[in-house]
Structures are given as C-alpha cells and as structure tokens.
C-alpha cells in the first residue's frame, strides 16, 4: 500500500503545476473578455457545457482529442529527447494528404484502411526525416527547419488538394471511400481514438520500459553525459524525430479517415491546420508524458469543440480559445511559477 502512495505522491507536483497554468490561462481569458465587454461566465458556461455535457459535444471533444493527443506526443517526445520539434503542423498535413492519396488506388475495404494509416504515418515520418538529418549531421536548429518545412508542406498540400487530388465542383479533395473509414463509436466519434490511445501507450512503453527509451531520455536530460555513457545522441534524436513524425502523420490520417461528414481535406486546408501548434500546449500540460498527454488532449479537445457553441450562443469570437492556449504555454514556460509566488508571499508575511 505504501508503494501505491509513494507512486502517486510524485504526481501531485506536476499536476498542480499543470492545473495552475490552466487556471492562469482561463483567468487571462476571463479578464480579456470582461475588458472587451463580453460576459465571460456565460461564455465559458456555454463552452464547457457543450463540450462535456452534451452527446454531440462530447463526441466532437474526443474526436479533437484524438488528433491533439497524437501531435502532443510528437512535441512531448521531442522534449524528452531534448528537441523542440514544432514540425507537427507540417507532418500532420502531409500525413492527411497521403491518406487521401491512397484513395486513388482501389484496395479491398479492410486493407485500404490499414494502408491509409500506414501511408499517413510514413508520410509524417518522411517529413520529419530532413529535420532530423539536418539536426544530427549539420547541427541546424530544429525550430528554423521545422517551420520552413511546415510552410513548404502547406504549399505542397495546397497544390495537391487543388490539383491532382481535387474533387471537381466541391470545396474538398477526393473523399476516403465509404467502407475504408474508421468505424464510428458514437455520434461523430470514430474508433481512431482507440488507435491514438494505443499509440500513446506504446510510446509510453517504449520510453519508460525499454532500453531505447532510457537512452532517448538520457540524451534529452543531458546530452554530454549520455554521450560519455556510450549512447549515440544522434541516433536517439533521429528516433525521437521519427516516432514524432509517425504520430503526427497518424494524426493527419485520423482526421481524414475518422472525422465525418467530409472524410477529405478542405481546399483551404482549414480542417488540417492549427493542430500542430496546439499540440505544444497539450504536451506541456501533459508534462511531456504520453499518458498525461491523453488527459490533457481531452481538456484541449473540449476547448476546441466548445468554442463554436460559445461563438454561436454567447457571440464571443472563438479565437479567445487560442489566446488562452497561448497564455497556458507562456505560463508553462515557468514551471517554478507557483514556487516563486509562494516564496514572495512568505517573504512578505515574515517581514
């Protein structure tokens, strides 16, 4: 029993820190809304009620969570390996496009879904490969290379969606065939979420229960010491990028093969953009841990799904959610924030 207690007492600090960052984010959101003359309480009630307490809303929350969880793993795994991998945005786009491209072949139903998933994952990993190679062989910082590749992916996908993969007369690309989509669980929630959770658990297992995972985390903790211990940092970083790419590619595939009613990419790419950067917040609040990321993705999925209800019923621009996400990330940059505040208060009272 004591081991149980010990195991979970280690969780209190990270959970408090994450909750504190969320509270700051929401507080700034409330403040901004109040300054702009909106009623924040009505807005947030609409947001959370529709996101978690209606069946349609909950299905869409979990559906967003599927994607956010995977891009969160991309970033979180990168952080564990000492990388700032913000390339999930581009890797997700090429993953989605690759899954759509599979629809141009004619394959038997079950196999088609499998091939689509594999293509999406490989495309994501392929897009992460130049970043990894440039980082390991040349020392190019991943922030610059990932952002450049995100934009290149954006224009490439725009070309493909409007060109070879365009479905004439519509506002989308060609669709995934009916019998090759992820089966729906309830409402609009597809079984892609099970695949995503499985992926998270596998990543958790690799990172915390295999030798490879220990090596990757050692490199992230202190590259120099890891090197002296006989670990090849380049190889560990390479694997960190590639697993991240697989996750982001799968996220793209999960959107086009698992989100009704379109099962396609919009011509302006509007349904596959924005996830990658939100994934940063998901990972940070999930403490860069695959299992933590699952829960944090559900929270952010709720913000994403509830923001439309908030806009429709409370007339608050849905971008307030992006502001909140930004503030959450900024406050997560200072893990010691709570400690600093506590020390300040203590210092004042003792005086």
């Amino acid at each position, binding site marked *: 029993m004591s081991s149980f207690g010990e195991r979970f007492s280690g969780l209190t600090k990270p959970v408090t820190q994450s909750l504190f960052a969320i509270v700051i984010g929401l507080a700034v959101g409330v403040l901004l809304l109040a300054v702009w003359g909106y009623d924040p309480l009505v807005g947030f009630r609409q947001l959370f009620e529709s996101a978690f307490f209606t069946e349609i809303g909950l299905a869409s929350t979990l559906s967003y969570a599927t994607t956010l969880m995977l891009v969160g793993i991309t970033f979180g795994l990168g952080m564990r390996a000492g990388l700032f991998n913000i390339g999930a945005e581009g890797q997700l786009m090429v993953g989605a496009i690759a899954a759509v491209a599979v629809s141009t072949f004619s394959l038997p139903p079950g196999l088609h879904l499998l091939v689509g998933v594999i293509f999406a994952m490989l495309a994501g990993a392929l897009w992460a490969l130049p970043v990894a190679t440039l980082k390991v062989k040349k020392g190019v910082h991943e922030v610059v290379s990932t952002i450049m590749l995100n934009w290149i992916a954006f224009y490439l996908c725009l070309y493909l969606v409007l060109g070879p993969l365009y479905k004439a007369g519509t506002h989308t690309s060609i669709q995934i065939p009916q019998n090759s989509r992820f089966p729906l669980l309830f409402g609009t929630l597809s079984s892609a979420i099970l695949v995503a959770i499985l992926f998270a658990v596998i990543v958790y297992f690799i990172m915390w229960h295999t030798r490879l995972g220990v090596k990757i985390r050692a490199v992230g903790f202190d590259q120099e010491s890891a090197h002296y211990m006989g670990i090849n940092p380049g190889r560990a970083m390479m694997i960190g990028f590639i697993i991240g790419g697989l996750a982001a590619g799968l996220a793209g595939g999960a959107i086009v093969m698992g989100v009704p009613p379109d099962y396609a990419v919009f011509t302006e790419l509007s349904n596959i953009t924005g996830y990658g950067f939100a994934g940063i917040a998901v990972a940070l609040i999930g403490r860069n841990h695959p299992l933590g990321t699952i829960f944090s993705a559900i929270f952010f999925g709720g913000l994403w799904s509830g923001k439309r209800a908030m806009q429709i019923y409370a007339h608050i621009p849905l971008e*307030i959610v992006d502001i909140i996400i930004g503030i959450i*990330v900024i406050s997560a940059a200072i893990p010691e924030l709570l400690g600093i505040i506590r020390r300040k208060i203590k210092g004042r009272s003792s005086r």
Partner: protein
Amino acid sequence: MTNAFRVKIRRKWVLGIILLMGVVIIFCVMHSAGLEVPSLIMISLDAMVLLGLVAIGEVVNERAGTVNIGLEGILLLSSFAAVFGTERSGSWAIGIFVGAVAGVLTGLIHGLISIYAKGDQIISGMGINLFAAGFVAFGIWTTWVPGVHMLSPGLEMPRISTPWGGLSWFVPITIVFTLAIHFVFYKTTWGVRLRAAGENPGAVDASGVNVFRLRLLACIFGATLAGLAGAFMSLDWVGMTTKALPAGRGFIALACVVFSGLEPISALGAAALFGFCEGLSTWIKAVPQLIPIIPPGFDKFIMMIPYIATLVAVTVVIGRRRFPKSVGRPYRREEI
C-alpha cells in the same frame, strides 16, 4: 592571429564583391531580356527591411544571451497594433509608436520570464507566437470585421519617390540602425559588456554591471525593433492587417541571425539575400512573359522559394558559425 584575422576579413570582402557582381550581371541580363528588374529590386528592399530590422534586433538580444523565438508573434501583434493605432488616431506616426510599444511590452514579458524567472525561453517564445495568433484574430474581429482589415485610404505612410516607385523611409533607417549597432558593439564599453553578458555573464556580474538588467534591456531592444518591423509591414508595405500576416518571416529572420553568426552587418546581408528570394517569388508571378509558361497550380511551388532558400542557406553556413557560450541559458548568480 592578427594575420589570420585579416585573411578572414579579406576573404569575406572578396566573396561579397563576387556575389554583388554576379547579382548585377544577372540583373543586366534580365533587363536586356525585357524584364521589369526595378520592380523586383523594390519588392526585395521591402522584404529586406522587414527581415533586417527583426534580425539585427535579435542579434543584439542573442549577443546578450537571450533567445527570442517569439519574433513571429511580435511581428503579428505589432502589425495589428500599428493599424489599430493609426485608425484610431488618424496618424501613421502614432500607429508606428503603438506598434513599437507592442514590441516593448512583449519583449518585457519575455525578458522577465526568461531572465528573472529563469523560465524556458523557447517555450515562452512559442507561447508568445500562439498568443499573438489568437489575440490578433480576436482583435480584428472585435474591432472591425473577422479576417482582414484594409487600412483606410490616406493613412498609409508616405514614401520617398524614386523613378522606379516609392521607396520606404525604413530602408535608410534600417541601414543606419545596422551601422549604429555595429559601432556600439565594437567601439563602446556598453558593446563590450553586452557581448560579454552572452559569453560569460559571471564575469560581467563580478565587474559590477547588472547582468540581469543588461539582458532585459537587450531583450526589450530586440523586441522593439521587431515591433517597428511589424508596424512597417502593416502600415508601409502591405497596408492591411490579417491574422497570418508575417507568414513565417519571424522565423526566416531567426535564420538570418543564424546565418550571420551574430554580426549585425552580416545579418543585414542575410536579410537582403532572403528578402531577394521573397521578392523573386512575388515578382515571378507578375512577369507577363512568364505567365503563359507557368503551368496551372505551379504558383504554389513558387511560393515555396523563400522557405526552401532559407533551409538551404542555413544548412550551408551552419557549423562555421560560433555562438556565445551562454546564449539561451538564464544566468543564476551563485548564492552567498
């Protein structure tokens, strides 16, 4: 050692002159083929000013030891703030001031987080980018209509008139700024302290200079230049504000910083190079002789030019660059 230094300088000059001659020859060939070369140069200069201002500001910031990847967000915030200020006051000068203030405030927050609270600078910077994307979209929505706001006619900043079209006042300003920063870096005590703060903050601290304040000021200065650049972009260059106006230029400016090896003049050179790539991608699409040749949809590949060029350029120069030892690491004074 002095000799090696001289050889290095000379090689740099020779390379620069060869590059310049190559560019001039290409321009002459293009001009004789009947292409609109002056318009290409004018677009490139605008793009150069934007990247240059952001890059030299970040050079100062990184020399002092702090990294700010929130430049993209600062560009976005200040481009919105500048249009907001101009529309409300009816004067572009106040707009530019408001844009710069947006830069100062963001720089202050980033500086406090990364220098005093010892937070993670990269995460803080990325948070600024995310916040800016949300805030500007929210601001445009609540102030005007969702999406885009065009600057009201008559409020644009005046330009220097030249035979080839208007030249922005920011072009000479950027060049003067660059030279001034070069001078401060290498000829003044403050420049020495600033550079030392990035290399060995402990030594600067021991000499009695407040490292924290020095770094904070450098961080605010860099963000202010980015704020000016954002104001330039929305008021002087494109005359509008949208929620995705910088389109990765903040990160291209970071690439300029890497490319320059933290030398202000080289940073401006890199900005000219990347600005030219951007000008090229805008210009090609408007060349009458090329329009029939470009296959439909191919313009997307032309749009990739600046990003691909940045990636290639950074890959080629990296490894030959040396960065300050303590860059990106918060300075902790040892407890007494």
